[in-house]
């Protein structure tokens, strides 16, 4: 099927215009960055509106705009509902953000917390998990960019992927977290207006009843509330989403960066506003049977349907929406992973005596290095977006309980936390390959909980919270 609906010239023009805008905006925002706190944490002074928008935008990724339709196409109604349950991660992180800011008012990364709370062994395991997830997400975002551009415009996958990575690296480098958060605000508005327009026009052109009738006639299992794989996916995705947010420095750096008393309400609002987005981006995939569309690669079903219904204008909007969604997550991930590399790996292992000025330089260099590594990993298009993302579920879900218990209970010790993360990840990965992606996060989370509960019963460590200050 010829999916190209936007001329190559238009695609290049959009990438250049948005690229120049984001980079210039990043430079302007970062021109007054002087200290490590300015660059890594936006001066720890982010207000409610920007805080809510950045939490929301970062969670609206290419996966929300490409994977939600794909999952709806494959798993039906539960696919989009299951994806929207990832909002629980944001909502449940809200009280944690408040607790994190209170316990560690001068903290920088989630690695800081794990090291001080559990010691070095658990910290090493956590760093492996966190970096595996970060690269999994970075690769899925980079690949998403390349796939989108090549599918919609015919431009070579590698050119599109390189362009998006280059733009995000440039403005993150120039403006730090301040640029990331401010662009997130603008990108959130663009994304929301885009997906809403596409959905309204899609409904008015095709008709909801016609979509439902066609699905019921041609693929009734997509409307089945007892679709077993879809139900497993629903629960798996809840724990995956929670694990992604609870452990990732993307969210911890925001908890540190938001003004006092802002974190809890910002994450709550972001979660509530995010909840319906996967349904809005996903339901359109159910129009595939009505349109007789059967894409070769299911991760492109959303953009293809939007383009088919809306023509060139639809392709234009889809392009801008997904481009913004990818940028809003890619920049956050670059900044947060660079913080982890700078503070934990460089400052914690390689050069423990590094001062803040040195760390600021390392932070900028690591953004560039991360961009290059991501580019190299994305270069061969290795798998579908879902597979890349879902494999990281086994890792991240294993961190949920060590983080929650670690933040609220003094009893859990470092050895148990390390075992919980390692054991959960191992079981989750095994089941990912033996059974399927829809059980990996769930099983990882259950094993980790089991280990933590045994640890809580067996040991009674009285951790001193002041050690986190």
């Amino acid at each position: 099927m010829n999916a190209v609906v936007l001329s190559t010239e238009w695609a290049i023009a959009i990438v250049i215009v948005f690229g120049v805008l984001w980079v210039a905006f990043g430079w302007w925002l970062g021109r007054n960055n002087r200290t490590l706190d300015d660059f890594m944490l936006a001066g720890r002074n982010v207000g409610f509106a920007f805080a809510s928008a950045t939490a929301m935008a970062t969670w609206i990724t290419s996966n929300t705009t490409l994977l939600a339709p794909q999952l709806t196409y494959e798993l039906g109604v539960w696919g989009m509902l299951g994806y929207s349950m990832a909002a629980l991660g944001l909502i449940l992180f809200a009280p944690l953000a408040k607790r994190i800011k209170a316990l560690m008012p001068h903290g920088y990364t989630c690695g800081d917390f794990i090291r001080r709370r559990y010691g070095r062994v658990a910290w090493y395991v956590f760093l492996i998990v966190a970096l595996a997830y970060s690269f999994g997400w970075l690769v899925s975002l980079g690949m998403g960019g390349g796939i989108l551009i090549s599918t919609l415009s015919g431009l070579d996958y590698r050119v599109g992927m390189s362009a998006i990575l280059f733009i995000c690296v440039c403005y993150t480098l120039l403006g730090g977290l301040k640029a990331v958060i401010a662009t997130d605000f603008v990108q959130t508005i663009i994304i929301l207006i885009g997906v809403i327009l596409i959905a309204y026009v899609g409904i008015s052109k095709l008709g909801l009843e016609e979509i439902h009738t066609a699905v019921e006639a041609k693929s009734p299992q997509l409307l089945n509330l007892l679709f077993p794989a879809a139900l497993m996916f629903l629960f798996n995705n809840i724990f995956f989403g929670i694990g992604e947010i609870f452990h990732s420095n993307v969210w911890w750096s925001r908890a540190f960066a938001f003004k006092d008393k802002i974190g809890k309400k910002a994450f709550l609002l972001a979660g509530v506003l995010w909840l319906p987005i996967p349904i809005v981006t996903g339901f359109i995939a159910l129009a595939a049977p009505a349109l007789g569309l059967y894409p070769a690669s299911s991760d492109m079903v959303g953009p293809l349907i939007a383009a088919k219904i809306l023509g060139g204008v639809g392709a234009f909007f889809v392009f801008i929406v997904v481009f913004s969604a990818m940028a809003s997550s890619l920049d956050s991930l670059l900044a947060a992973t660079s913080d982890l590399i700078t503070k934990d790996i460089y400052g914690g292992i390689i050069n423990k005596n590094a001062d803040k000025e040195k760390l600021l330089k390392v932070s900028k260099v690591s953004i560039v290095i991360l961009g290059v590594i991501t580019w190299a990993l994305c270069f061969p298009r290795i798998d579908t977006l879902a597979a890349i993302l879902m494999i990281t579920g086994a890792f991240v879900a294993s961190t949920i309980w060590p983080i929650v218990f670690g933040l609220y209970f003094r009893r859990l010790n470092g050895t148990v936390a390390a075992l919980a993360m390692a054991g959960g990840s191992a079981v989750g990965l095994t089941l990912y390959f033996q059974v399927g992606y829809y059980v990996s996060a769930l099983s990882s989370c259950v094993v980790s909980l089991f280990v933590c509960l045994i640890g809580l019963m067996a040991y009674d460590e009285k951790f001193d919270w002041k050690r986190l200050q």
Partner: protein
Amino acid sequence: MLVTYEWFEVLVWTALGLSTLAPLVLLVLALIDWKKEQLW
């Protein structure tokens, strides 16, 4: 057990309605923060 058209309609329109509110809420909050000089 299939989702009926009525429930499908409720689900999609509710999601679309809430999503339509989202950019308005964010813009109003930004205006308030900007007026109070509390954006950053």
